[in-house]
């Protein structure tokens, strides 16, 4: 029996590997994606251009401007001379934010009355603009503390912010572990999603069904290539994260691999299910797409799950990518204990069992 399964696994591996184009597709794009997307998927807001409209020529405003100019966050402080120019800089997307210092600013500060500045953000990019606005507000808070110190009085209270797990808020530390899940999913889905559909189109699947192989044996044979290729690719990304990207790996590598294997089985189950359900490759590709795109976008990789409406958060419980991301970020950055990892692994295990059993059932069913 095992030799039968082994023969099938060898055949499946060969059929993926033999075709030059499909071999290329499995190796090159994931590496390019790793290189490009780990740098591209960034929520950092750097090189911001800020338009500055200073209506006040007093000392206090010049001190404030000097503080902004000294900051490395802003690429350019674009000085404008009128309200209209300020508006145009935002409209044209030249500046993401604009700061207007009113005429009476220095006078009010010197009189100890407290003054206000106006900050305009480009709402077309409200997330980045909000973060850039946060930087400016932070600088003004520092500036206030300095003014208070100079006046010789205590600010009353201080707010100290400390970021855990990723102290400098490095996007790479978040994105690269996330890519372990996202990219292996794409590969595993593509390898398995087309395997049955292609054989059906070519008529070889019927031949496979009339061999002594049982459905579950076929299932094992069809699962192995996806699992092997997925684990290999996952390992490459994990290695790259350590050697090239220098992302800390605080938790247990064993836990990471165990969770990744369950995740891949789950993805392969879905891929085989789609494949067994469709009669042409085109349907299989579309099915894989319909699964891949939502699971990726609604996973928490790009935007947090907690921001979704409650009903949709519940819906994402059946999204394997959501669970593996919790594990990946947990194991890489948070040294997550096994008990917490298990909370994310068991839903994937349930999904894997259901989809794999379902596709084994479909293998036979679709023949009639």
């Amino acid at each position: 029996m095992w030799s039968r399964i082994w023969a099938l696994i060898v055949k499946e591996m060969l059929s993926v590997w033999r075709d030059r184009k499909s071999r290329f597709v499995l190796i090159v794009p994931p590496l390019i994606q790793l290189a490009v997307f780990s740098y591209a998927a960034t929520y950092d807001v750097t090189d911001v251009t800020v338009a500055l409209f200073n209506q006040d020529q007093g000392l206090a405003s010049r001190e404030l401007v000097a503080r902004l100019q000294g900051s490395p966050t802003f690429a350019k402080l674009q000085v404008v001379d009128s309200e209209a120019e300020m508006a145009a800089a935002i409209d044209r997307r030249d500046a993401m934010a604009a700061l207007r210092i009113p005429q009476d600013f220095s006078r009010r500060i010197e009189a100890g009355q407290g003054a206000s500045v106006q900050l305009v953000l480009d709402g077309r990019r409200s997330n980045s603009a909000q973060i850039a606005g946060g930087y400016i507000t932070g600088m003004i808070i520092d500036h206030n503390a300095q003014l208070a110190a100079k006046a010789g009085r205590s600010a009353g209270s201080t707010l100290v912010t400390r970021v855990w797990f990723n102290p400098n808020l490095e996007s790479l530390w978040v994105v690269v572990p996330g890519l372990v899940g996202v990219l292996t999913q794409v590969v595993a889905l593509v390898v398995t999603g087309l395997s049955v559909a292609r054989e059906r189109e070519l008529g070889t699947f019927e031949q496979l069904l009339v061999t002594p192989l049982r459905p579950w044996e076929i299932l094992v044979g069809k699962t192995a290539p996806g699992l092997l290729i997925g684990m290999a690719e996952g390992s490459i990304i994990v290695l790259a994260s350590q050697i090239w990207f220098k992302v800390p790996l605080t938790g247990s590598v064993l836990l990471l691999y165990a969770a990744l294997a369950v995740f891949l089985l789950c993805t392969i189950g879905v891929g085989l299910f789609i494949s067994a359900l469709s009669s042409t490759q085109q349907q299989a590709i579309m099915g894989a797409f319909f699964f891949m795109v939502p699971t990726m976008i609604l996973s928490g990789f790009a935007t947090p799950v907690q921001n979704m409406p409650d009903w949709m958060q519940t819906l994402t419980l059946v999204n394997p990518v959501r669970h593996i991301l919790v594990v990946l970020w947990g194991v890489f950055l948070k040294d997550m204990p096994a008990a917490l990892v298990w909370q994310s692994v068991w839903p994937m295990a349930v999904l894997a069992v259901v989809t794999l059993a379902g596709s084994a059932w479909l293998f036979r069913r679709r023949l009639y």
Partner: protein
Amino acid sequence: MIIIFRRLWALMRKEVLQIVRDPSSMVIGLVLPVVLLLLFGYGVSLDARHVTVALVVSDPTPRTASLVSAFSNSSYFQVEEVRDRRPAEDGLVSGRYRGVVLVAADFDAKAARGDEAPIQVLLDGTDANTARLVKGYAEGVWAKWLGHEARDHGLSPSVPVTVETRVWFNEALESRNFLVPGLIAINMTLVGTILTALVVAREWERGTMEAMIATPVGRLELLAGKVIPYFVLGMGGMALSVAIALGLFHVPMRGSFWVLGVVSALFLIGALNLGLLISTIAKNQFVAGQIAIVAAFLPAFMLSGFVFEPSSMPAWIEALSHIVAARYFVTCLQTIFMAGDVWSVLLPNAGALALIALILALITLKRTRKSLE
């Protein structure tokens, strides 16, 4: 001339019949964009509202109570009061809390003496974007509380400079308003590219494409006959998406519809040609599907400026993003929907879209000839 039109007409009829009879093209062209837009319109949000934070107050006093209520009254936070530091920190590891606010036991005593009484905020760095936003929100709540405290105790404002923030084009800071136009661009990339990539790859696979090339039909006619019907289908999907964006998600529409139409048409022509090009290179559906994901969907998702800001990326990636048509389309859509017909933004971006469409069409034309030989 008449014969060319008759041939073209016949080709288009054949293609339309194929679309009508094979539901999968209709599904990609019309159902896919609607389903994706609905899912993402609800699911993709950068608005961190009601962020669950733990507030650790080890020694409650009236002063700490006023701080707690300042946080609870803010719509940004959902506060859970905790006595001990330990469960709050565990909650940060498990993801239950996205931030922890620590008020030390001697907070009240220090504040009463006029010393600096520190408040510590711990954030979860595995979600860098939310961490930055939450930091900003916490600073805002704290600054406001400080002002109230000073006023209640009859002191002069201890905050010399205050910031009044105005957000143009998106006053309520709804991330949906800029994400939905971006999502439309991603959907149209998917629809346009996959539609032609898969359909034509199938024809190559079955050999019907070679049969077509062998007929007296010219290459230009052949390609036009393919592109035009799918163009109509894709524009139908676009119209549905815009209807959903305006009707369901209440995205503002400050520009004009004809500009939206022109820009979308330019983008769609480029995407359809990219699909054709992929199918002529790949010639089988498996590879075509893969390349469509890699060359169209992922760049549109990552490099278009839909959520990630290209100007913040390393220079070589930013340079790369300039060849992604979706980048120009996202910029155009965000401007048309939220700001209006700002020609200084729209003209250069629409020009880039036209240029990309033209280049892709020329390459496709050339590749089709090559594959004949």
